[in-house]
């Protein structure tokens, strides 16, 4: 069944969109990532104009994250306090990121920068997570007891300490705030919720338990992407509500399935799967940059100086 999208001005198959939304929704619920880093390239591929894809994707992430976070709330795996701290950093970062993005757009080559950002960050995060989770799996096989990861380092020496009961942490608010700002900047530049950077950052930098990380990440993604949706809708008029509805119907159902699937997997397995996924997307994007494209020319709208 073909559907004409009013803002994107293209006609696409409705079931294809439902399927895509569902697939990305499963991943979203499982790993606590918004799925934007997967969905946005997929939308480009089926012919949605990039500006519309990026803006509409933000709206769809709101839906799947909300659906996912409700399931996590019921299992009490959302650290609201930590989420709020990350979020306040994230909004500052996002606002700064938009300014930076517009500056780079004025310089041209913003596409290339976004792509390079993707390749570098996905590559580094993916391989780090992959190696770490492999080690964790190997260790847990050797000795049955859960590995103790409570290390004392410089982070614990910082002032403004706060107790995060759900995460079982007593740390300074400075590192989560900085993580929030940095992720916010990257999210705005790359046009995604930033879950795939936030999740590893929470695990490895803040030392939060994996089970809490997913819910908390989803919680803050809702606000960051909601903010982005409004920005796009009011400044660029590029949010396509018809596209969003089709994607999010698939997405919210997928997110529910994903959240339940996630509970059957061990934390290390969850992380290794996410790492593989991140590496896969990175490899695809890197190949696009390295291999000669079949069509060297591309048509863009004029006026974007």
């Amino acid at each position, binding site marked *: 069944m073909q559907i004409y999208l009013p803002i994107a001005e293209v006609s696409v198959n409705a079931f294809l969109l439902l399927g895509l939304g569902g697939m990305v929704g499963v991943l979203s619920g499982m790993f606590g990532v918004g799925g934007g880093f997967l969905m946005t390239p997929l939308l480009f591929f089926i012919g949605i104009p990039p500006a519309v894809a990026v803006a509409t994707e933000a709206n769809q992430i709101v839906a799947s994250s909300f659906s996912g976070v409700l399931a996590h709330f019921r299992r009490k795996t959302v650290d609201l306090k930590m989420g709020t701290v990350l979020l306040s950093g994230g909004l500052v970062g996002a606002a700064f990121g938009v300014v930076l993005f517009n500056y780079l757009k004025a310089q041209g080559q913003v596409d290339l920068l976004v792509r390079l950002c993707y390749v570098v960050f996905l590559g580094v995060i993916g391989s780090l997570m992959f190696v770490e989770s492999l080690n964790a799996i190997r260790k847990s096989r050797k000795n049955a007891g859960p590995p103790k990861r409570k290390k004392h380092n410089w982070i614990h020496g910082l002032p403004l300490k706060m107790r995060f009961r759900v995460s079982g942490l007593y740390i300074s608010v400075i590192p989560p705030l900085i993580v929030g700002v940095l992720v916010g900047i990257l999210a705005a530049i790359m046009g995604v919720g930033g879950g795939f950077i936030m999740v590893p950052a929470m695990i490895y930098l803040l030392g939060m338990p994996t089970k809490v990380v997913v819910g908390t990440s989803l919680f803050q993604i809702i606000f960051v992407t909601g903010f982005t949706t409004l920005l796009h809708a009011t400044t660029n008029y590029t949010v396509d509500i018809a596209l969003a509805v089709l994607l999010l119907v698939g997405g*919210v159902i997928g*997110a529910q399935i994903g959240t339940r699937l996630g509970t059957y997997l061990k934390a290390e397995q969850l992380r290794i799967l996410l790492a593989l996924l991140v590496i896969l997307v990175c490899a695809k994007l890197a190949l696009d940059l390295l*291999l000669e*494209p079949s069509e060297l020319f*591309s048509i863009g709208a*004029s006026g974007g100086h």
Partner: protein
Amino acid sequence: MKRLLLSLLLIVATPMMAEEVVLGLSQDQVAITADFDGSEILLFGAVKRESPILQDPPLEVVIAVSGPSGPLTVRRKERKFGIWVNADAVEIDRAPSFYAVATSAPFNEAMSNVEDQRHRVSIPRAIRSVGAPMGIEDAQSFSEAVIRIRTDEGSYQLLENSVSVDEQTLFRTSIKMPANLTEGDYPTRIFLTRGGKVVSNYETVINVNKVGLERWLFDMSRNQPLMYGLMSLAIAIAAGWMASAAFQVLQRR
């Protein structure tokens, strides 16, 4: 429709040229609805003449339907530091979003080069490109790329021999408009030619418009962007909540 035809008849009744076009369209409006999946427009007409039919050279018909035009930026990728990046860019001053040319004979036979130049009928002539930036020698290849890319996606069509002409008087053709149409006025031109020379031409406009829900959503996104954004968010939150609640019910059973 009848009244339209009648008024057309009245207009063309004033004898100015020996042969003139009386045109009919299966539709002069294309409505883009939610399930719009492309459209086929039937163009038919007759040649009105006062004098007896000239047998040689034969009458040919050229029909050009054009979408709204606008400027474009065409970029070319180049290998730099081992990766493919956008390097050169050329501004195309005017290129239609949709363009179809239907002819009753091979294009070069139906219309001479000189006439094509004057009326800008063939696809390459419909694209206007004035000067490339310094340092780009093959500016031609950029407008060629536009034609190649848009022909591949079905937006530009050259339909040779697709207009059927009966008795040098009646002609008809159909033009497929793709699903990714843009809104706007689609100027439609009909040329009657003999021996490559234009003996008469006729112009009309096909209107392409979003209607119903499509129209409402589009207008709202432009006129009340904040409301539109909030509505999008509300739908997203509601859908997320509903899915969550539904799954909880399913799981309890």
